[in-house]
């Protein structure tokens, strides 16, 4: 079973993001970057499928040179090889443009499954995976927490006839189970698995794993964006703290009321 995991390097969660001088993108010079969270879960799902059914996991990422660090970390966690689409203008491309790059890299690999995080932490379009499926002409499902492969035989490296059962997360604690054929594209929701930690052994082994470099400009895809980014702004800071008055009992009752009907988490 060949699984491709499309991952994205995004600014670190703890990074202090500043908007650049042109107002079109963020200041990248002093930022720390890390693997997008839901992509980390996509990678984990792929690694667990490989451990259960055999095959290989290939990570794919588009971006500038710094993406190499994140690719190596993914290899350290257990991916077998990687494809890096070298591309210095990722921020200028819209979801369609990025999906075109990824699709061009994926097609020659003819994978059984393509997994990717459901959305990126920086732009958060939630579109790339879906467009990718369309470009590849494959069925897709979104918001996946868990994948089961049926009719697989771990002795076989490829299982073109396998069907998969996926668990989707819906609103308000509802789940949906879907059966679908492979090959397919799935966008993975965070939290379905427990992530594994990177190990020293993994990092050392990753040094010898293959990272194939593709040049974005040589893939022959249309780079012109259809969505034009106009302007970036930071959200306004606002405080919306409410003090609930009354005795502890009254305050607790009021809090439950609010949690039930305003915030709707109970």
């Amino acid at each position, binding site marked *: 079973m060949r699984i491709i995991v499309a991952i994205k390097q995004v600014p*670190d*969660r*703890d990074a202090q993001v500043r908007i650049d001088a042109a107002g079109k993108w963020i200041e990248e010079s002093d930022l720390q970057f890390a693997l997008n969270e839901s992509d980390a879960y996509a990678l984990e799902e792929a690694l667990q499928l490989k451990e259960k059914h055999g095959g290989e996991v290939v990570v794919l990422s588009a971006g500038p040179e710094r993406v190499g660090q994140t690719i190596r970390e993914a290899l350290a966690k257990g991916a077998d090889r990687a494809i890096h689409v070298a591309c210095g203008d990722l921020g200028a491309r819209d979801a369609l443009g990025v999906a075109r790059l990824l699709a061009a890299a994926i097609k020659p690999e003819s994978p059984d499954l393509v997994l990717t995080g459901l959305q990126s932490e920086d732009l958060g379009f939630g579109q790339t995976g879906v467009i990718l499926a369309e470009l590849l002409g494959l069925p897709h499902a979104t918001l996946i927490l868990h994948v089961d492969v049926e009719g697989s035989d771990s002795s076989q490296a490829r299982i073109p006839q396998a069907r998969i059962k996926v668990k989707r997360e819906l609103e308000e604690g509802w789940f949906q189970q879907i059966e679908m054929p492979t090959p397919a594209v799935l966008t993975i929701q965070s939290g379905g698995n427990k992530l594994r*930690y*990177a190990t*020293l*052994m993994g990092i*050392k082994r990753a040094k010898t794993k293959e990272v194939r470099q593709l040049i974005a400009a040589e893939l022959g895809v249309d780079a012109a964006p259809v969505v034009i980014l106009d302007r970036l702004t930071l959200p306004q800071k606002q405080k919306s703290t409410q003090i609930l008055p009354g005795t502890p009992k009254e305050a607790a009752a009021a809090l439950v009321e609010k949690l039930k009907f305003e915030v709707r988490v109970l």
Partner: protein
Amino acid sequence: MLFSLSTAALPILAEPQHFSLTEKLIFSGIIIASASAFWRRFGVVLNKILHSKRDPNFHLFPLGKRVWDFFWEVLCQAKVIRERPLPGLAHAVVFWAFLAFALVTLNHCATGLGIGFLSPGGFIGRWYFYLAAVFAMFCAVGISGLFVRRFLIRPKWLGAKLSWESGFIAFLIFALMATYLASFAVTDTSLAARVLWWLHTLALFTFLPIIPHTKHLHLVLSPATVFLSRGSYAQIPPLIGDEDFGLVAGTDLTQLVSLQAYSCVECGRCTEHCPAANTGKLLNPKEIILGVRAYLNDLGPSSDQPLLGKYNQQQAVFQCTTCGACEFQCPVGIEHVPILVGLRRGAVNTGAWEDDYGAKLFLALERGSNALGISPAERDKFIQKQALPLFDGTQEYCLWLGCMGGYDPKGREIVADFARVMNYLGTSYGVLRKEKCTGDPVRRLGDDLVFQQLAEANLEALAQNKVKKIVSICPHCVRTIQEDWKEYGTPPEIEHHSEFLARFADKLPSQRGADGEGSALQVKGTGFSPYNPAHPKSPGALAPEGQEKIVFHDPCYLGRYRNVYDEPRAVAALAGTVLEAPRNHERSFCCGAGGGLAFLGEETGERVSHNRAQELVATGATTVGTACPFCNSMFRDALATTGEAPPQLLDIAQLAARALPTANPTKDHAS
């Protein structure tokens, strides 16, 4: 005249003067049989040690400390006696008698072959045999005492199973001494002298081959083990090359580890002081060492079978708080901490350890900045709220907050109070704009990948900010920065806030009232007298009426790891009378947080922190003084369970800050 008369009256050691050829042949046969039986086992052990991996960072020089340790711990038996005075002394007299008997035994063998060199009647021989006789008497009493202890008193640390071999050995040692002493009561031509001589011979050459087959192997190995230590306490060796992930399999066992494993004398002092073993955990440090030995016996140092599994259990290894009490106590020079951390490294660096809490901690530090997994924006807010100055290269000190000082509510209180004291003293300091965890918990849990990332990032940040001196409220940060970061660069000078505060103790207001009695701990300036083990530290010294009674808990990473005991007491003494808990100074009992365990969730068995909190409360103190934010965090909950009115819990910085003028202190003193 008097001299010669008195010596003439003393009996002389009776040795048979002539041996027949048959006797000589039998004697030679016994020597050869005994020596070869000794070597058949000892050769195997030596081979396993020598064929273990070389210790890559081992340096024999400088020799000074090694020679001193050998003299003090081996020849003087100082540690053996200090940590268990009565049995220690009994052991010491047996050991010293063995030393005295080296020459006696050599002469005994030479005599049997007809080439004796010490004549019992000659001046040297005569006096030497008298000297040996004195040792022999002490030894006979000592070994009898040890026999009584092992077989009648039966301390639980020696294990539930009676060791009959130990009884037999004790009997042989007693027989050696008895036959030697009895020889003074007979004449050298008598049959009795001959019988005693042969009994002594038999005891001697029965003893010899038993040595390598039992824990008495320590007789031969432990002097070398003490001499060949890693060089400093609880030192974690660097990993070398692309295939070194810690102690994974036999091939990772180094010569020092193997030597130490075979040196264990199974006395159980490590277990007696282990916080895990004392609170019903699986971990027993003695069994860890014996597990490594059993592995070496069965599989040897070339095996690629995992070390964890059959011989030692992963769960036990991850219950260690790295408090180091075991290593501190060990009389034969075993270094438990590097072995336990080495086994953890082997499990974590290869991904074999699966633990939800552990993985959460590692992931938090792979991506984030602190072990608590909180956004660094919270640290920024704290710095702003407390108006802590940012370090800009002009200040004397960089105040290192650490994860607890930057994110934990109680840790922040300690930092705030310490900052107040520094303001009062007019010390210039600043905090780093960004700080990452020093890597202490991941280092001790064995995640070398994350540790390296954190150490390198921090070293770079400190170098960029041109930091020369660091002060920190956390002994774990201090240890990790000063010792563990050395693997990746040169850390700035660092001290713990207790050392800083003690240096300025005479400039800080005392809260002790006019009497000032009993302030022996209040040390002026920097000249601290080193801790004197002979000085009694009786628990629960009486405090004068109306004075606050403060029991100080020695944090492992400040006491045993840094040898700082008097400084925090000097600071606490500013605020009241310092009491001692039964387990204090080097014998302090861990709070349970070290070794990354603060992050690993619920313990099995009794909680270590509860055990210690009860002990601290039992001193009758009104305040528990700490000097570590992790201890503070552990005792916060533990003290609440000890009764209705538990003592208050304060860091020494808070004790020192309490008497400062409450009005804006910087107004009066900063200039």
